[in-house]
């Protein structure tokens, strides 16, 4: 699965190089609204906001997939729960993010704890299938929520507010809120990967037997990672609902889960910043290709497969080889 070993996250040199890439990326993004003021079509600001939202979800997936070695095929469920959290609470008159977001995150944690505890009893392909099944379960549950639009989805009457302030409604403010959230999630996950917990998670991806006979409860470590990952993906969903001002079961479709895996693999599994780059590459390519033809998915799918096969280690691996810093 992992062409780029996440274990190399432990080596100080590539770790610092990756941090540099991430910080440069955030710096570039920070000046994007300025570029819009100087004539860049504002469509790009909307697209970048959407890409950052998906980057948060892809990052969270990379924690379990790239770092932990757990290929979850139901990650979109957490986006959906986060999004419905925003939508339902707004529909019920609770538009305050300081209340709604923690509730949405708590719902994700609960869903992750229950489904993770069951899924983690299995390994390999069975794990992929069971996470897929739980994802579909969430999808059908959302379809059955007739009070909140059922199959048709739910339109948000307004965006969430932050401490009573309607910053989510302004495109530029919202952009910066999403950027700050992305940067925060990135540094949080980075810190977790480098921590004692992260070391055990990385080691268990490679050699769970060794980790167990060293005295660690591998299932518990993985469950904790799964819950953290689900909570962060929930934040992404909360923001997505606010951007689109709409929530529907399609947020949780298995295709969406597959796309998240694509983003991570495209950017470079287990590298963290790769997930961000992968999300941008995916959404920009989608945006451009869908402008050309409505059959863009038929072109895009094979392109991604080819790309991943040819680059080994995704965009991160490609860049490192071009820079002559291949670490093997």
């Amino acid at each position, binding site marked *: 699965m992992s062409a780029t070993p996440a274990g190399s996250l432990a080596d100080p040199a590539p770790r610092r190089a990756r941090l540099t890439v991430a910080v440069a990326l955030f710096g570039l993004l920070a000046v994007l609204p300025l570029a819009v003021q100087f004539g860049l079509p504002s469509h790009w600001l909307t697209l970048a906001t959407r890409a950052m939202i998906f980057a948060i979800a892809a990052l969270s997936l990379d924690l379990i997939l790239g770092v932990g070695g757990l290929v979850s095929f139901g990650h979109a469920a957490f986006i959906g729960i986060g999004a419905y959290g925003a939508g339902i609470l707004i529909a019920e008159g609770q538009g305050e993010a300081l209340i709604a977001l923690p509730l949405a995150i708590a719902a994700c944690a609960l869903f992750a704890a229950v489904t993770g505890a069951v899924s983690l009893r299995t390994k390999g392909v069975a794990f992929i299938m069971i996470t897929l099944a739980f994802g579909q379960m969430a999808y059908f549950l959302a379809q059955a929520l007739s009070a909140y639009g059922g199959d048709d989805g739910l339109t948000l009457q307004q965006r969430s507010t932050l401490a009573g302030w309607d910053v989510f409604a302004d495109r530029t403010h919202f952009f910066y809120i999403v950027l700050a959230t992305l940067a925060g999630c990135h540094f949080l996950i980075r810190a977790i990967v480098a921590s004692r917990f992260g070391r055990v998670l990385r080691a268990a991806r490679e050699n769970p037997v060794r980790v167990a006979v060293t005295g*660690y409860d591998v299932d518990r470590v993985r469950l904790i990672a799964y819950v953290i990952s689900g909570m962060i993906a929930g934040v992404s969903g909360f923001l997505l609902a606010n951007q689109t001002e709409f929530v529907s079961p399609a947020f949780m479709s298995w295709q969406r889960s597959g796309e998240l895996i694509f983003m991570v693999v495209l950017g470079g599994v287990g590298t963290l910043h790769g997930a961000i780059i992968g999300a941008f590459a995916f959404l920009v390519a989608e945006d451009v290709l869908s402008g050309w033809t409505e059959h863009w998915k038929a072109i895009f799918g094979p392109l991604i497969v080819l790309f991943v096969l040819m680059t080994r280690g995704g965009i991160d691996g490609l860049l490192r080889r071009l820079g002559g810093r291949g670490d093997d």
Partner: protein
Amino acid sequence: MTEPVLALSGLRKRFGALQVTDNVSLALAPGELHALIGPNGAGKTTLVHQISGMLKPDAGAILFRGADVTALSPQRRARAGLARTFQITSTIASLSVLENVALSAQARGPRPLALFGDAARDEALNGPARAALEAVGLAGRAHVSAGRLSHGEKRALEIAMALTLEPAAILLDEPLAGVGREEGERLIGLLRSLKGRYAMLLVEHDMDAVFALADTVTVLVYGAVIATGDPAGVRADKAVREAYLGEEG
């Protein structure tokens, strides 16, 4: 006689029609180096797996430090002070040698799963890890990926990982297998230096090493113990000579 650290009583295990562990009882005293020998396929590794919790015996009991651990998971047994190495070396290849040992240091220290703080720079972990690497002669290799070590170095690393757990007993499954002469000599020296400080169950085919190191030798043939006792006595045992040592001349 002192209370044994580890005691097996009436252990049985079957793989289909094959009786791999046949009513095995065995005791390991504190500080004792107990060698377990036997021909290929005798069931030595299977026995070590049962002691470390990776396989469940069909019958019998495993007592470790006076408590019945037969139903405990491998991680619970490790936390109770039981360490092991593997016949096929088992390290974390992509982590540095130092991090491999630090993983052990972290397991027995406080807050082994702390979510924050850079583990790679944690002196509370690196200090003991470095000391263990020093003890096994790997100090100069601390920052190499474990996957790049020579076979003998990997064996030494596994021993360092086991020692860092500060275990009450160590199970060593053929620590000399596949190791060259020179590295083998070094490993034998290392085991000798550990003698008396840890209770060790040593599975080994190298008879020179076994008879040079062991306090007690147990011979396993077709899953059953055919002899146990001090090295000289076992070497002289008629059944052992016929079943095992004899065939080696």
